[in-house]
């Protein structure tokens, strides 16, 4: 009984996985495989991270980063999904824009953020802009590939009833592309978090995890602080993904049922 139910307990299994990694890193540090001067011991990091959880200033930083993250991600979806549909359904437009888009896609944040600093006089707007820029690509590309995967017969069915292209888009292409889009949004969520922190790091600002990392750089134990703050970024990633997974399960029951994706 116990073996089975243990494996069925999702959070427990996850905790075991995390504990495993923790022990591995700690062991690597203790045995000198990873020099603790170069990268702190797992236990040291954990201690610092725990202390941060009780640090009001740091919590305010987290909230500020999360605000930019949420706003940026929302805007990303609002921009990238329609753009993906436009490009995915209009091959001529897509092939005309492709060189420009493919040119823009590999511009790194380190080059982008300084330019954004020049263009935006408001820090928050700047953050949102770079988040949307970087996080839109996975949503855009996944939407376009999802559209290619729509069952043609489903589209033909609606067309045969006299529905126009927009109705087909809305009632068939969108629902059947939704699982693809969801994967893109999950990818975008972590990219958005990374960009929010990077923008704070490069641009400074009143508060944010990135700002915290700037300040931490002044400490003699800077590495420990920086890695501990990073741990919290990872924790945010786990939490946000759990939420996304819950929403996806609700929305895509049909998809799971047809594909054995249910677990």
């Amino acid at each position, binding site marked *: 009984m116990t073996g089975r139910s243990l494996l069925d307990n999702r959070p427990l299994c996850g905790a075991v996985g995390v504990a495993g990694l923790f022990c591995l890193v700690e062991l690597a540090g203790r045995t000198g495989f990873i020099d603790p001067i170069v990268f702190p011991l797992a236990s040291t990091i954990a201690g610092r991270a725990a202390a941060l959880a009780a640090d009001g200033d740091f919590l305010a930083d987290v909230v500020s980063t999360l605000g930019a993250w949420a706003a940026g991600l929302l805007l990303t979806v609002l921009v990238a999904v329609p753009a993906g549909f436009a490009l995915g359904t209009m091959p001529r437009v897509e092939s005309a824009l492709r060189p420009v888009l493919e040119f823009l896609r590999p511009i790194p*944040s380190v080059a982008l953020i300084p330019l954004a600093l020049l263009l935006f006089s408001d820090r928050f707007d700047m953050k949102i802009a770079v988040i949307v820029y970087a996080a839109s690509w996975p949503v855009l590309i996944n939407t376009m590939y999802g559209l290619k995967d729509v069952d043609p017969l489903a589209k033909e069915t609606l067309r045969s009833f006299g529905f126009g292209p927009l109705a087909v888009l809305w009632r068939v292409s969108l629902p059947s592309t939704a699982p693809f889009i969801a994967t893109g949004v999950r990818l975008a969520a972590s990219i958005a978090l990374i960009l929010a922190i990077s923008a704070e790091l490069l641009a400074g600002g009143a508060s944010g995890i990135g700002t915290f990392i700037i300040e931490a750089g002044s400490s003699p134990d800077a590495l420990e602080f920086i890695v501990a703050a990073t741990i919290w970024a*990872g924790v945010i990633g786990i939490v946000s*993904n759990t939420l996304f997974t819950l929403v996806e399960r609700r929305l895509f029951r049909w998809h799971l049922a047809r594909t054995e994706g249910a677990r």
Partner: protein
Amino acid sequence: MRVLRGLGRLWLVPVVLAAWEAATRAAEDNFFPPPTAIAVRMHEMWLSGPPERLWLTDAAVENIPTSVGRLFAGWLIAGVIGIALGLMLGRSPVLSRFLDPLIEFGRAIPPPALLPFFLALFAAGAQMQIATIVFGIIWPILLNAGDGARHVDRQHLETSRVFGFSRSQRLLRVILPSAMPKIFAGLRLSLSLALILMVISELVGSTNGIGFQLLDAQRSFDLPGVWGTIVVLGVLGYVLNSAFLAAERRLLSWHRAAKQTI
């Protein structure tokens, strides 16, 4: 003929360039030099070498191939690991139950923040840089492959079960092809991410590469140089993506044909 048609598709490029030139000339902002100025600087940086070396400068010969080499190494490693691990996680609920939090944790971490970790684990230089690239770009492949493998049509899996397909047959002949459209979306995303991570990996403790050149130009306030590096990245991105799409067209031809409508 085909070349002409290929060029025809690029019609928007000169339009954008002209608009860019006009806008930057009108704005007269130091930080936004006109494309012509960027071109001059690019020529100086990379194409003013001796004719017997195809006019490539030392900087071009030293930096571009090194960077592109690391980029490909990183992309290939991320591709192999990402697809393999993604398929495993997609098909094994137990495994994914243990590893999912670690993966979600890992992908929310800004790659530059992990530099000390990689510095500790790997020799500085190429090893560390490739590790950074792999870590930064593996997520789209991993996630897309995982989701693709999780959502294989039930009827296809039942068919392979009923006919007693071996594990490897099931994986290679059924699950992998079904997940292919998603995997390709992931690979395409990570290809340009690889360029970005290539740059990031060359920002710390590095002495060569396109990213190093970008850093060098930024540190020297050489704005045409900064833009020139961005242009090189963009052009590389376009070329790599075009090659990728050509390969995809071959490998996913069944998919395109099966799903096409008038």
